[in-house]
C-alpha cells in the first residue's frame, strides 16, 4: 500500500529524471514525539504565531485519488497527509502508538479499539467507529479496485465477504460509536501493523456504489478528512488549496492556508530562493544548491530504503523459489565480490553525501535492525577478496589478467542495472564493475529499461545474473515478503530452511508472545544468517531530503516522516 518498491519510484521519476524520493515514511506520518535534533528545522525560537500561507511543492502531478483507501502514488499520499488522519501512529522506531484510537489485546487475535470522543470530520460529523467499519467493508468489497485488500484480508470472515459467501464480516463488531472489536482469523504478531486504520466518512460516500467511489467527487475534488487542513479547491493535476480546520482534534493549526502545487524539480531551487515556495522534498543531487540558499534549511532525516546487489541463485517455479542456478552458488565468490567494493567511496560519489553503507537487509533505524558490532562489516579489502577468490579456485589460468572459474572456463560476471533517464545510473553501475575487475573478475554491464528490468527479475530471467536493486520498507518489520523462500519478490531466489524457520518463529505468537525483545532477537539472528549466506550484498541506505524555508517553524522529522502540520507555524 503505502511503501512503494523502488520500481514504482523509478517509474515516477522517469519523467523527472530524478531517482529516489522514497515515500514510505511520509504516509504513516504523524508522530508528535520530540525527536533527536537531527531532523529539526530551524531554531524553534519564540511563541508560535498564527496566520500565513504555506506553499508546498510536489515534484510530479498527483493522480487525484485523494483518499487513503484509493490512492496509488506517494505524490497523492503527500496531499492526503495534509487533510486526513490515521487512527494510529508510528514512533521513530516505527512502532505503533495510540493516536485517535487506542487498543487492548490479550492474545493478538482479538483487538478492542477505543477512539477518542469528539473528533470531528471536516463536514461537521463526529468520527464514529462506524466510519472505520465502513472503510473496512468498502475495501473488502468484491467491486473495490484499489490495492489495499491485503490490509483487511486477515480479519476473520473478510475473505468470505470478499468472495460474496457472507454478507457480513464476522470479525468486525461495533459495540458503540466509540468502541469496536476486531477479530483476526488467527493470532499474529504483526496483525496490528497490517490492519487498515483509516476511516472513511460515511455521509460523504452515502449512496455511491463501491465501484464508482474511485471516480467520485468525494475522492477527486471534494475530499472530507479528519486532518488539520481542509481542501477548499482543487485544480486537477496542478494545485490544491487548503485552509485551516479549526476543529482538528490535535489542536487548532497555526497556519491559515496551505497551497500544494506541482513544480518541476528543475525549478524548485529558484522558487525556494525567491521565497515563493516554502517546503518540498528534493532530489539528493541538488543538495548543495539547496544548502547554499540562506533562506532555506536543507534537512536530511533517516529513510527506510536500501540498495543491494543480488545474485541469481535459482528460479521461480510459479509458486515458490527453487535454488538451482550454480554460477554464483559459492559463498566465497559472493564474499569476495563484497570485499572488492569500496562502498564508502561509492556512496560518497553517487549518493551526494546523504547515504551511507548498510550491512543488513534492514534499514538502520528500524527497531529490529541488528547492531553493526554483531555483524560482519565487509569493509573494503581487495586483498582479502583476491585471497578468497584464490581459495575458491577462481584463478587466472590463461594469463589474460582475468580469473577463470574453478573448472578453468571463462568466467564473466554479467551485471545488470536498471536504466531510466537518470544519467548517474550508468556511471554508478560502471563503478561497481570496475571494483570487480580490479580483483580480476571480468564483468559485463547491461543497462535495461526499468520496466523490462523488473519484469525480468520477477520472472527470474536467465540473463539477469547479478543485479542492482532496492527496497523501501514499512512499519511492519517482517522481511518474509522480500526474503522468504515462497516470496515472489525474493529476486535472488534464495532458499534457506533456517531463514524460513527464523522468520516464521518471529511471527509465531506462541514463541514470541507480545515480547518485542524476543522478536528482535530472532530478527537479529536472521540478519546474522543473512549476512553469512549473502544472497545479496547490501550496499547503501539513503536518507530522505527535504527543503524547509526558514520562516516555517516547528517542523520535525523522524523515520516515520514529518510531524503533523498543525504544529507548524510561519514567522511573520
Amino acid at each position, binding site marked *: 500500500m503505502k511503501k512503494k518498491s523502488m520500481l514504482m519510484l523509478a517509474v*515516477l521519476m522517469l519523467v523527472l529524471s530524478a531517482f529516489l524520493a522514497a515515500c514510505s515514511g511520509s504516509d504513516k506520518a504523524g508522530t508528535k514525539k520530540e525527536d533527536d535534533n537531527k531532523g529539526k528545522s530551524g531554531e524553534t525560537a519564540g511563541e508560535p504565531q498564527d496566520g500565513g500561507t504555506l506553499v508546498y511543492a510536489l515534484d510530479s502531478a498527483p493522480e487525484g485519488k485523494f483518499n487513503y483507501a484509493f490512492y*496509488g502514488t506517494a505524490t497523492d499520499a503527500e496531499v492526503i497527509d495534509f487533510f486526513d488522519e490515521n487512527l494510529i501512529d508510528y514512533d521513530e522506531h516505527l512502532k505503533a502508538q495510540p493516536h485517535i484510537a487506542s487498543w487492548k489485546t490479550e492474545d493478538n487475535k482479538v483487538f478492542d479499539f477505543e477512539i477518542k470522543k469528539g473528533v470531528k470530520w471536516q463536514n461537521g460529523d463526529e468520527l464514529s467507529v462506524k466510519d472505520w467499519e465502513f472503510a473496512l467493508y468498502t475495501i473488502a468489497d468484491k467491486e473495490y479496485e484499489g490495492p489495499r485488500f491485503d490490509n483487511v484480508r486477515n480479519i476473520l470472515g473478510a475473505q468470505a465477504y470478499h468472495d460474496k459467501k457472507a454478507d457480513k464480516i464476522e470479525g468486525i463488531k461495533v459495540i458503540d460509536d466509540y468502541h469496536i472489536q476486531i477479530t483476526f482469523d488467527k493470532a499474529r504478531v504483526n496483525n496490528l501493523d497490517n490492519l487498515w486504520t483509516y476511516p472513511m466518512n460515511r455521509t460523504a460516500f452515502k449512496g455511491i456504489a463501491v465501484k464508482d467511489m474511485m471516480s467520485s467527487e468525494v475522492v477527486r475534488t471534494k475530499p472530507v478528512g479528519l486532518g488539520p487542513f481542509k481542501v477548499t479547491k482543487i485544480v486537477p493535476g496542478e494545485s490544491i*488549496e487548503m485552509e485551516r480546520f479549526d476543529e482538528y482534534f490535535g489542536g487548532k493549526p497555526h497556519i491559515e492556508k496551505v497551497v500544494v502545487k506541482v513544480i518541476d524539480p528543475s525549478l524548485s531551487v*529558484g*522558487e525556494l530562493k525567491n521565497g515563493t515556495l516554502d517546503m518540498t522534498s528534493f532530489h539528493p543531487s541538488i543538495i548543495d544548491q539547496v544548502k547554499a540558499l540562506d533562506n532555506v534549511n536543507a534537512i536530511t532525516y533517516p529513510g527506510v530504503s536500501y540498495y543491494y546487489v543480488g545474485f541469481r541463485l535459482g528460479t521461480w517455479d510459479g509458486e515458490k523459489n527453487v535454488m538451482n542456478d550454480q554460477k554464483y552458488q559459492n559463498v566465497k565468490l559472493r564474499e569476495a565480490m563484497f570485499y572488492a567494493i569500496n562502498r564508502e567511496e561509492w556512496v560518497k560519489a553517487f549518493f551526494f553525501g546523504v547515504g551511507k553503507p548498510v550491512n543488513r537487509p534492514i534499514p538502520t533505524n528500524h527497531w529490529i535492525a541488528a547492531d553493526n558490532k554483531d555483524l560482519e562489516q565487509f569493509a573494503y579489502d581487495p586483498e582479502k577478496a583476491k585471497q578468497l577468490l584464490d581459495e575458491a579456485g577462481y584463478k587466472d589460468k590463461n594469463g589474460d589478467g582475468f580469473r577463470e572459474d574453478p573448472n578453468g572456463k571463462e568466467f564473466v560476471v554479467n551485471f545488470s542495472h536498471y536504466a531510466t533517464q537518470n544519467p548517474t545510473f550508468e556511471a554508478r553501475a560502471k563503478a561497481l564493475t570496475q571494483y570487480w575487475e580490479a580483483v580480476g573478475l571480468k564483468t559485463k554491464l547491461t543497462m535495461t529499461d526499468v520496466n523490462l528490468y*523488473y519484469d525480468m527479475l520477477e520472472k527470474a530471467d536467465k540473463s539477469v545474473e547479478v543485479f542492482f536493486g532496492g527496497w523501501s520498507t514499512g512499519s511492519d518489520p517482517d522481511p518474509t515478503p522480500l526474503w522468504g523462500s515462497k516470496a515472489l*519478490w525474493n529476486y535472488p531466489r534464495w532458499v534457506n530452511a533456517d531463514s524460513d524457520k527464523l522468520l516464521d518463529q518471529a511471527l509465531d505468537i506462541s514463541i514470541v508472545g507480545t515480547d518485542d525483545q524476543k522478536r528482535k532477537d530472532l530478527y537479529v539472528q536472521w540478519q546474522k544468517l543473512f549476512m553469512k549466506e549473502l544472497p545479496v550484498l547490501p550496499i547503501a541506505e539513503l536518507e530522505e531530503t527535504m527543503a524547509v524555508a526558514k520562516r516555517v517553524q516547528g517542523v520535525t522529522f523522524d523515520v516515520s516522516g514529518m510531524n503533523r502540520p498543525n504544529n507548524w507555524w510561519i514567522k511573520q
Partner: protein
Amino acid sequence: MLKYAFRRILGMIPMLFLISIIVFTLAKLMPGDSLSGEIDPRNTNPQYIQEMREKLGYNDPLPQQYFRWIGNFVQGDFGKSTRFKIEVSEVLSERLPNTIMLGLTSIIITYILAFFMGTYSGRKPYTFGDNLIGGLNYLGLSIPSFVAGVFAIFLFSFTLGWFPSNGSVDIGTTEGTLEYWLSRFHHVLLPALVLGLLSTASYTQFLRNDIIENSRKDFVRTARAKGTPERKIYNVHILRNSVIPLITFLGFDLVAIISGAIITETIFTYPGLGQLFLQSVGTRDYPVLMTLTMLFSFLTLVGNLIADILYGVVDPRIRLD
C-alpha cells in the same frame, strides 16, 4: 470540391484502421504494463496483481484485446485510464482547454512576428535588417525548447519576477471572473512566448522567400511600369500572392495546437495534453496513450485535408479533381 473532400474522408478510414493497429501493437510492445509499477511487497501481493491483470484483460490474446479496444473506441468509449481510474474522455477534457489556450496563444505570437519580420525581410532582402532577422530566426530554430524554457524561467520568473514559473492558473482566483482569466493569460504567456518565438523561423523565411520571388515576376514589373506606388505593390500585389503557401500551414497548425508541447508543458508544469502524453508513456496508461495517439493521427489527417482544400480555395489555378 465536395466530391474531392468526400473521397479523401473515405480514404481516411482504412488509414485510421492501419494506424490503430500500429498504435496498439507499439503500445503493447513496451515492456511492462500499468501494473508493474504497483509492486509493493508488503501489502500488494502477487495475487492482487494477477486479479487486476485478469480484470483489465491483459492476459487475453492480443488480437482479442485489440478488437475489444477498437470496438469500444469506434463507439466513442475510450476506456478508463489505468492511472487516474476515470474515463479517458474526462481526463482529456480536463487538460484540453489548457492545451488549446497555449497552442492558440503561441501560434498567434508566431503569426504576428513572422508576418512582420517576413514582410520586412522580403522587402529589403540582403540588408543588415534581413540578415539580423535571419540570424535570430535560425538561432531560435536551433535552441532546444528545454534550454529556452529553463532560461526564460530563470530570467523572467526568477530574476525579473514578471511571470509565474509553473501552473496554468493561480488557485486563489474564482473561476469565471475577469481576474481568473487574466491569471490564466498571465500563466500561459511565458510558455507561449517560448514556443512561439522558437517556431517563427520557418514562417518568416517562407514569407520572405515568396516575397522576393514574387517581386521579380512580370506582374510586378508591369505594376512598377505603370507607376503604382511601391508600398501598394508590396502590400497588395505581392503580399496577397505570397500569403497563399502560408495558408496551407493552417492545416498543420491545427495538430500543433492540440498536440501540445511535450517538453515545454513539462518544464512549465503546465497541465496539458503534451505533459499527459509523456506521463502516460511512463506509467503505461494504455487507454490514455492510445486515445491521444489516435487523436493526433486523426488531426494530422484532417489537417492535411484542410491544407489541400484551402490550397484550392485560395489559388483557383490549382484544381483538386
